[in-house]
């Protein structure tokens, strides 16, 4: 099986996975009583109407009286044509609310991802080059600290320290500042720092252990014998093979933190991004928006995993496609 066929098969598989998850979501939603219907019944009872009749009307209005397979197909078409309904709580279409959230999420996610991908492998390789020195121990200690400290707890502490006591950063997130301004950098510095410490640890460890393997490889001895400078030797001969296994952990790590911690970090710092949107929707009982944000995170996860696999195969020509 060649590369194009492998990529095609992998894309089909990603579609299947997303379909499975969407189906599970549908089953979960269909098996539960819809709060809107309960509400309609209560409303009718309060106004002296017939609750039964109100329930019937509401069901008809929402298309719940149709057979299950019709509703399932409708749901699928809706999901894949991005017709995600109306958000009661925000009074706007769900997709619009999500894209607004994404705008704020991207503002801290992009610098966070770039910094993690730059600093993680660099420090890891540096750590391997100075293995068992105090620099290595310092980096290792930092790595362990980073992934052991809960992001939301770290965020609260830093906010208290720099926002309340030292007054260096604004405590309340301001949505009015321009994206590329010093103000924005100031208010996003701590959230980005918290997320980078959280995600960098695992990447540093993996790149340290992987590059330790190549440090004494024959090609490094040859390079040294030829008189290649250590910097160049590490950059060209150690960094490159290290990046291959690293790419598999990298995306998974970032996604895990993106799905979990960014929600918390947004709540802690008051950033009105996707995570905050999900949280508000949960609290406000806005079913369409809850569903929409679940779906968008799911799609991000599926596409992330797909890209990871494809990048991995492109980077490492030794991989056999049949082995997957």
């Amino acid at each position, binding site marked *: 099986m060649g590369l194009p066929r492998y990529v095609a098969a992998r894309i089909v*598989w990603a579609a299947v*996975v997303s379909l*499975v*998850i969407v189906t*599970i*979501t549908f089953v*979960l*939603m269909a098996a*539960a009583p819809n709060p809107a219907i309960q509400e309609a019944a209560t409303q009718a009872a309060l106004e002296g109407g017939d609750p039964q009749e109100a329930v019937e009307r509401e069901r008809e209005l929402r298309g719940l009286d149709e057979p299950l397979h019709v509703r399932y197909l409708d749901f699928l078409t809706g999901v894949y044509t991005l017709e995600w309904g109306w958000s009661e709580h925000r009074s706007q279409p769900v997709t619009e609310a999500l894209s607004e959230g994404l705008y704020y999420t991207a503002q801290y996610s992009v610098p966070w991802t770039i910094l993690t991908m730059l600093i993680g492998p660099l420090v890891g390789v540096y750590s391997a080059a100075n293995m068992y020195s105090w620099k290595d121990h310092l980096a290792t200690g930092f790595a*362990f*600290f980073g*992934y*052991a*400290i*809960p992001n*939301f*707890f770290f965020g*609260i*502490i830093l906010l*208290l320290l720099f926002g*309340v006591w030292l007054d260096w950063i604004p405590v309340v997130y301001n949505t009015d500042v321009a994206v590329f301004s010093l103000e924005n950098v100031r208010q996003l510095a701590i959230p980005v720092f918290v997320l980078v410490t959280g995600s960098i640890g695992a990447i540093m460890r993996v790149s340290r252990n992987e590059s*330790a393997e190549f440090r004494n490889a024959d090609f490094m001895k040859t390079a040294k014998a030829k008189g290649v400078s250590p910097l160049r030797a590490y950059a060209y001969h150690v960094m490159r093979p290290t990046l291959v296994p690293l790419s598999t952990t990298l995306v998974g790590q970032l996604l895990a933190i993106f*799905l*979990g*911690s960014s*929600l*918390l970090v947004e*709540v802690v710092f008051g950033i009105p991004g996707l995570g905050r949107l*999900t*949280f508000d929707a*949960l609290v406000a*009982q806005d*079913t369409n928006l*809850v*569903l929409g*944000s*679940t779906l968008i*995170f*799911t799609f991000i*996860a*599926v596409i992330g*995993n797909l890209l990871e696999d494809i990048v991995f195969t492109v980077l490492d020509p030794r991989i056999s496609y049949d082995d997957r």
Partner: protein
Amino acid sequence: MATEKTDKPDRFDEVDWTELAGTRRRDLSVNSLGMIATTLPLVALFAYDWRFVGEREATFGAVGLEADWSGIDFMFVFTLLLFCFYLVLPLYQHPRMTRYYWREFKRNRPAVVSLGWLLVVFVGGLLGPLVLNAPQQDVLAGHQPPVFLSIDAANVAQCLGEVRGGRCYGTWQYPLGTTRGGKGVFRTIVYGMTISTQIAFITTTIVAAIGVSVGTASAYAGGWVDELLMRFVDIVLSFPTLLMFLLILYIYGAGLGMFIFVFSLFAWGGTARYVRSKSLSVAEAAYIDASRLSGAGTYRVVRRHVVPNTASSIITQLTLLVPGFLLAEAQLAFLELGDSELPSWGQLISAGRSDLAFAPWIVLAPGIVLFLTILAFNFLGDALLDALDPQTEAETER
């Protein structure tokens, strides 16, 4: 070695054929016998609780005890029994290997400290609720500072300790201070240890059970079964568990039991993949061929040779999984989306957030405990990797 009183000689050149021949019938080991003997009363108690004890009555009401057990408690005791009979007892039965592991493990000092800390959490979680009463609301005792620390007397309704120079000092009644509602932080942390211990034990048991079964089945069946199971693992691995849990929580509402169920049901993917690749490599080994030649069936080969030989890597992997669960529980409790009745660490962090500026201990104490626990699990996993798996060490030394 001759002085040791173990069942089997520590020599491999002598084979007790009568003993081996005896094991052909499914003779139960001491471990399994003990497990069955202790599980049966537990099941009986569960049936009794389920069938005869009312919804709001305590499980042990008939014998005059207050304790009321929920499904999680039964599950927890069951996992504890498993842990005793299949991990602690075997270590006791094989003192030579235990000493070897301990020697290897001891070389990693942070890991020994970590193990000590985890033991504190475990014992605190197990015995704490028996010794200490549950933290009670007491509005008058709100915002008391920890011992040796003080707070501006204007911030407390009533100072339980002495007041010196307008500052209220902490008392030993509340060693780590109190929350806004007057709940003792120390007691809440001890009760939170119970929850964390329960999460750690139950999830690892479920994950190990599913992961090992799917992994070995996949490796041994091969063909389309293997393909199907591994594709299923792919789905499990790319499943956004936290979000799905939020969705379930939103639709149905969910307590700790649901949390444990959902998270362990979607966490075994990595373990299954790991076990599969490990059993495939173990299956190539010469001793597997040898036992096959001596007439061992597939079940016996898997049960006696493959699973025990993958155990070390499974234990390491599970150790590194646990902190993820603890963190997820804390995150949900922090968002106040979990069971609000549960005195967990995350809940305490969330409760103290609004008073952070003048009463930081409410957030700091549980946060640091959570941090140390996660750190300890990571150190422990690292050390176990070195201690249990001689191959990895050989690789690093090369």
